[in-house]
Structures are given as structure tokens and as C-alpha cells.
């Protein structure tokens, strides 16, 4: 298991970090932090420039939407969920872990 500590993000901010071998997108959506693998399961594009609305991120390439909490995709373009990472927050510090979340 690999973990990463980082400062908590301001609301609506996002940051790309590396956890172990994975490129991870961390984002603050309405005060809740989420961490998902920064790679669309449709065609492996990075997701960090996608729009985030209502708890979903849309891939900037073909618009596949993923639930940031569960990683589950919407629509028919992919059935593979995004890998999610656990996020814990304590005293303004986030701990991102690649343990099964």
C-alpha cells in the first residue's frame, strides 16, 4: 500500500498527483474530496480537464461520465469503472491511499 499526504484543496479545486504507480486526480466537490485514477477507461485520455457537475466528471474527449464517488461510468462507451482511491482528511491534510477503497 502506498499513501500520499497533501494539503486539502479549496472547493472546486483539483490537482493531479502520483500515488505509487498511479496518476491520480484529486478534487474537492462541494466540500467533499474525491480521488480517482486520472485515466478514462474508454480510451485512456487524462480526465483532469473534464467538467465536474453533480458529482460526476465528464471525459473531455467523448464525454463519458464517471461517478467520482464510486468510479462507475454512465452510458454505453465503457463499462469499466474508474479506479478510486480512499481519501481521509485530518487538520487540513489529505491522505490518499491506493489500498482497496
Amino acid at each position, binding site marked *: 500500500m502506498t499513501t500520499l499526504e497533501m494539503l486539502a484543496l479549496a472547493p472546486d479545486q483539483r490537482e493531479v498527483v502520483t500515488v505509487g504507480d498511479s496518476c491520480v486526480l484529486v478534487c474537492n466537490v462541494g466540500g467533499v474530496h474525491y480521488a480517482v485514477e486520472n485515466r478514462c477507461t474508454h480510451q485512456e485520455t487524462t480526465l483532469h480537464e473534464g*467538467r465536474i457537475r453533480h458529482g460526476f466528471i465528464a471525459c*473531455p474527449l*467523448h464525454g463519458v461520465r464517471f461517478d467520482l464517488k464510486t468510479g462507475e461510468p454512465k*452510458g454505453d462507451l465503457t463499462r469499466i469503472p474508474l479506479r478510486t482511491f480512499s481519501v481521509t482528511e485530518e487538520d487540513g491534510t489529505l491522505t490518499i491511499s491506493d489500498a482497496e477503497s
Partner: protein
Amino acid sequence: MAESLKPGAGRAPGHTYQEAILKDSSKPPEAFLDYSYEFMGDQDIPYRHYTSKDYAAREMENLWPHVWQMACREEHIAEPGDYQVYDIGHLSAIVTRTESMEIKAYVNACMHRGTALKPPGDNGFCQSFRCPFHGWIYSLDGELVEVPESWDFPHVGAETHSLREILVDTWAGFVFVNFDRESEPLDQFLGVLPEHFKDFDIGNRYIETHVCKRLPVNWKAAEEAFMEAYHVKETHAGGRDFSEPVTTYDVYPLNVSRFIHTVGSVNPRMPVPPTEQELLSAMWGRRGANDQACPTVPDGVTARDVYAEVVKKSLGEQYGQDFSHYSTAQTLDSIEYFLFPNFFIFPGLSLPMAYRFRPDPSDPDYSYFDLYFLRPSQPGVTPPPPPEPIMLDVKDSYTLAEGLGFLGAVYDQDTDNMAAQTRGFKTCAKGGQTLGNYQEVRIRHLHSRVQDYVGDDQ
């Protein structure tokens, strides 16, 4: 049997709906007092109009591409780049909001080799529409802005290969599309609806619940299950007299019909009429707030008026609005308007529904039913975003869907009838549905409009 009357002249004994609501203490909207029934014939409706693949194919060719259909609510596409896919049979449209906040709708197919740009039923948000096949890119305005390896396409440009726009317009917060660019404008298609809805602020409501279920019946028979209150006593109340409402049925040119039925009024057909107190107790029991004792109905006041005041106050507190100007009829009654071919809306305060029905293009014995609960938006408060639809398959009970309350079991009862009808259509030797002249006139109105587009099938 009222044999001496002309066909269609018969009515249930006792007062009409319009007479009943004049006994309320508050004045109902003028439109509620209108009578607009006409006898439309008493021939059977052929079962083949529900079961025939040929008839369904003709509906798909001659009806659906030429009529206005509700694609989504405006809040589904609140910001630039938000989009919603609307599918009807083999047709599909993308409805979106452009950078200038205009609403536009396009045929959902790339102008290169026809690939659908977005999957069926999809919704989301994007900067542009990019085909997943070869990466042709269209702006939110539908303009072709990028063709990879454009050296190979000297014959392609924005003038000829931008997305095909279809008609789009809005009414009461709903976004309607029409695939026929020569069609009449929406406000003409709506007929009396805007006038009849002027006392209801439907545009200022938000979607609280959205359930989409596959139904085991043809789309027309699915709609018909919601067009009359004649079935209520048997389907929903085990034959109890108490549940028999006083109902008006009206048809309007060309695309609108309605019923309105009372909630909590004395039905003159009952052998022993209930007291006003008994009527109030019955309504109170369904309210789901049984921790509060049922109030006493004062002398000279009706249960309806007492209950309407309670409902207006309680919903007013719940939604941060003042509903005191709503009449008793607007507050309590089941008010259902239909817009041909597939849209229903209940503008009343107590029943918050809107319905949309669509055929299953692969099988005329199945259809899709979108059920929405629309609630008043609180002034100054941003309503929650539209919920993702809860998808139910044929065998899934509505009671599995959160947010439907006691109505979940009611919709299950309607669905059971639909499956039984589909089976019966195919074994019944008579050849067609027999309809009541008055209570089932909206069904005849629906078929009359379908025939206008599809033509005779002989």
C-alpha cells in the same frame, strides 16, 4: 341504461365536476368550469392498432417524426455544454445549451459516416461534440469545426456538414423537439394548454423524482391506462364505493384532452353519503402525517375546504411559498392534461406528476414510461439538480423506487392491468376495444389523432 338519450349524452347521476367545485368556498379557475366534451363515435378500436408491427412501423414513419415531443426540462441543460439525448424509436436528438445560452437540438448522428455522437438516453456536459469513430468535432452551435486529416475531405465544410438542426422550443420549463422542420410552431400545437395553465407556475418547478420503466404494453394502451378514472374503483380500491370520484372529461382541438376529478367530495351515487367529518378523516388517513389528530369540520364548512387549507399551509412551509391564493380545486383535485402524442401533466398542488410515454421500437407490445414528480422551487434557493432517472425493468416494482410514496403501489396495480391487456388483445375474438362514450372519450381522441397521421389501415 339510458337508452332514450342520444349516444354520448349519458352522464353519471348527480352533479357534474363543474357543479361540485362551485360548492367550494374559493373560486376555481375559469378553465376548470369549462365543458368541452363531444361524442366521437362508438366503434371498437381495433386490437391490431396495438399489436401489429406494420401499424407500429407506420406510426414510426408518419407520426413520430412530425409531432412535438417533450425531450427534457430546461434544468437538464442549465449551462452551456449540458446536453440531453432524446430517443424516439429509431430517431435520436441531442438537445443542448450553447455558449450564448440558446437551446438547440440536432439529429444525433455524425455527418461523416452517420455514427451516433452520444449513446441512447445519455446526458452530460461537454465543450463540443466529438464523434467517437474518427474524431470529427462540432461546436455546441452544431458547426463542424474540425475534421482530422482534412486534406482528404476537400468536399466537406461547415456549410454542408454541420449537424442537422431540428425544431426546439420551450413551454412551462419543458423543452420540446420536433424532427420535422416544416412543422407548425409549438405554441400552435399546444392549443388551449398555455391559457389553461396561466394560474399555475409550472416553469418554476423542479424535478424531485424521475423513474423510467419498461412497460409490458403498447404505448397507446399504456397512455390509456391514465386517461380515465373509470378504472379507479376496481383497480385501486377493491370495488369500494368510497373511491368513486366525480370526473369531467374534455377534449380540445387538436392535441389536448383532460380529466379533472374531485378529491374528498360527496358522490351522490353512494347509498349512504358520508358526513363531511368522515370525508376529512378519509383524506387525513392518506396524508401520512398521522401523528396529528384529524381536525373537526365546523358546521357549514366542507371537508374539502378544511383539508385544502391544511395542504396549502403544509406544502407552503415545505416549499417556502405562499399557496394561499390556490383554490380548493387547484389544491386537492386530480387535474390531468394530455398533450398528444405522449405527454401528461398534473398542474395541481397535491399531485405533482408529469408522464411521458414512448414506443419500444423493437416490439409493439412494450413501451417506456418516464414518470416525473415536479415540486415548487423555493424562492431564492437553487433547486437540486435533476436526479438521474431510476431505471425499472418490466418486472421491477415501483415500490423499489424511492420518492414515490404510496403511489408506488398504485402504479404497480396499473402495470398489472397492462400486461393482462397485452395478453388479452391477442386472444380476444371480438377484434377491438369497446369504449364508454363519455368516460373513455380521451382514448378515442388519442386514436383519432393517431389516425390523422397514420391513415386508415385497410
